[in-house]
């Protein structure tokens, strides 16, 4: 049986897809014939330009229906460009990366059923657990089975389930709705194999080819607002040697020396991180590989860091880190369970500066316990670390969205403790808690308008001190306009905001 592993729009186009590179390698390593096809990349090249490609995002994200001509174009693409390349294979493994991949997947499967007879369709990826577009009460995978648009669907980590399906199993963990089992030993999994792709066809952000890499699954931390543990209850990690070996393999096979870690934290396990850096630094020195990698990073207390740690990180190719600084207030950061202070940031910024490592701050304005003095500390941060903006060490700041009480987070369990109530019930979401229109009776000053005000003030302060902020002044004007609209709306209400169902005012969404 000839297998074809397929990725579909919408994925990002700056790097080849990692999930299908893994699945294809799992299939190959068990002795089956396999090829991979990235229809997202094909679609990118099918359209006349980038703008045209990105114009479909609202469709993939279910924010609007396609126009007739757009739908015609998608169908033409499937019929003329996809099916001819698929017809010689017997079994299709379609990676449904998330909700934004469900629409294309459904269309593709309808075309397969109509034009390519006797083919087996297996769906996998996070999107199979998304709500179905047509049958809202069902998950996407289940709904596709019911409609006979697929033969099997796999949820959770697919590496083991794929092998079971290859053996002919149609039952087992993760298959057709059965609860998946997390894989403990992720060191034993094969490396993604990018030989299945034409690596010259991606829209890289720099002149260098870049691929994703996964060093760990889950997170060692339990930051109160974060829902990573809901999806990855147990933290699993690869050894530093294994990660470094994968990077070296991609370099030696394809000349790839740029990597983007998808981990929640690349330095969650300092042991693995340190081992990886040592191997890469040595390899860089011996082979002039010029590795460069980036990912999410956590600042640590200074005493937890070994001597010369950042010199080693830099020598290994550590180049750009996204750090959840969240606030300028030590007190609030502690309540978020982040466990590092402004002094720790001082030390690490200085080290980054010394060793040419860039950092992007990720912020969360208006935490549930944030008082006005805490907010002032956030504003003071811009002056305090401005010198690192001037040197280019601080390469960006993302002020992000306002706080939400996401399902499965430690913060969700603290709703009573903070005496939080919500200003709207939102039928479009599974869980009303996801809204950012909330208020805490224990912190009454931090109502929605005040959170918006603080967000705007923070934005203005960032601009004042020349911090590189996404779309800077332009974005600020958009937010100001929305705030005005919201305040007018609130003023017009006679009822207490708690009773008001607020529509179309998803300020930060």
């Amino acid at each position, binding site marked *: 049986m000839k297998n074809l592993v397929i990725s579909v729009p919408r994925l990002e186009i700056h790097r080849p897809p990692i999930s299908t590179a893994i699945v294809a390698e799992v299939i190959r390593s068990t002795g089956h014939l396999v090829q991979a096809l990235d229809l997202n990349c094909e679609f990118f090249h099918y359209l006349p330009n980038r703008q045209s490609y990105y114009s479909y995002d609202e469709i993939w994200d279910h924010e609007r229906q396609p126009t007739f001509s757009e739908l015609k174009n998608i169908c033409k693409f499937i019929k003329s460009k996809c099916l001819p390349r698929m017809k010689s294979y017997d079994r299709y493994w379609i990676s449904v990366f998330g909700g934004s991949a469900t629409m294309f997947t459904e269309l593709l499967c309808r075309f397969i059923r109509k034009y390519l007879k006797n083919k087996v369709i297996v769906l996998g990826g996070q999107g199979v657990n998304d709500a179905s577009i047509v049958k809202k009460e069902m998950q996407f995978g289940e709904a596709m089975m019911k409609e006979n648009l697929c033969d099997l669907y796999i949820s959770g980590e697919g590496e083991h389930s794929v092998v079971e399906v290859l053996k002919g199993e149609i039952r087992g963990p993760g298959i057709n709705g059965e609860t998946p089992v997390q894989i403990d030993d992720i060191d034993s999994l094969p490396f993604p194999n990018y030989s299945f792709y034409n690596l010259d066809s991606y829209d890289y952000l720099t002149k260098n080819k870049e691929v994703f890499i996964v060093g760990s699954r*889950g*997170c*060692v*931390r*339990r930051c109160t607002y974060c829902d990573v543990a809901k999806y990855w209850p*147990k*933290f699993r*990690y690869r050894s530093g040697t294994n990660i470094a070996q994968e990077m070296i393999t991609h370099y030696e096979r394809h000349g790839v020396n740029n990597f983007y870690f998808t981990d929640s934290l690349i330095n*969650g*396990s*300092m*042991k*693995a991180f*340190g081992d990886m850096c040592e191997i890469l630094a040595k390899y860089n020195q011996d082979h002039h590989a010029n590795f460069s990698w980036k990912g999410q990073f956590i600042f*640590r*207390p200074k*005493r*937890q*860091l*070994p*001597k010369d740690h950042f010199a080693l990180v830099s020598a290994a190719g550590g180049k750009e880190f996204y750090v959840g600084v969240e606030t300028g207030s030590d007190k609030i950061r502690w309540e978020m369970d982040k*466990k590092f202070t402004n002094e720790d940031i001082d030390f690490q910024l200085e080290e980054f500066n010394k060793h040419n490592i860039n950092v992007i701050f990720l912020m969360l304005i208006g935490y549930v316990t944030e008082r006005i003095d805490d907010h002032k500390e956030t504003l003071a941060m811009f002056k305090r670390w401005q010198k690192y903006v001037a040197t280019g060490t601080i390469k960006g700041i993302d002020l992000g969205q306002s706080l939400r009480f996401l399902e499965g987070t430690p913060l969700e369990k603290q709703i009573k403790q903070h005496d939080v109530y919500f200003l709207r019930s939102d039928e479009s979401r599974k869980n009303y808690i996801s809204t950012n229109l909330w208020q805490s009776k224990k912190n009454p000053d931090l109502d929605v308008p005040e959170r918006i005000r603080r967000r705007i003030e923070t934005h203005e302060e960032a601009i004042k001190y020349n911090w590189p902020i996404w779309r800077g002044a332009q974005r600020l004007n958009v937010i100001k306009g929305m705030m005005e609209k919201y305040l007018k709306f609130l003023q017009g209400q006679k009822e207490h905001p708690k009773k008001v169902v607020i529509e179309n005012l998803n300020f930060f969404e």
Partner: protein
Amino acid sequence: MTYTVNDKCIMCKHTDCVEVCPVDCFYEGENMLVINPDECIDCGVCEPECPEDAIRPDTDNEGRAWLDFNRKWSTAGWPVLTTKKDSLDPDGKHRDEPNKLEKYFKDK
């Protein structure tokens, strides 16, 4: 690199640390905990949880001094502890008491 538990834990054993450990590397003796240095991934999450400041990284002298002790008792058959229990010293009577190792340590 690893973290180690020192004698400040003896007779206190608050166990806040075990709840946050992502790799379950705390082992429980009768009146103290130890860390298995080979299982610890050096994430550092447990360190600030300890109200007695009994957990230290082996990058400092104090932490390093307890490395062999932690290795020995974590591999001596003590059970793994993964969930928080009631503290042995809720009122802080043994806090900062000197020579706890000599006075109270039990090898079970």
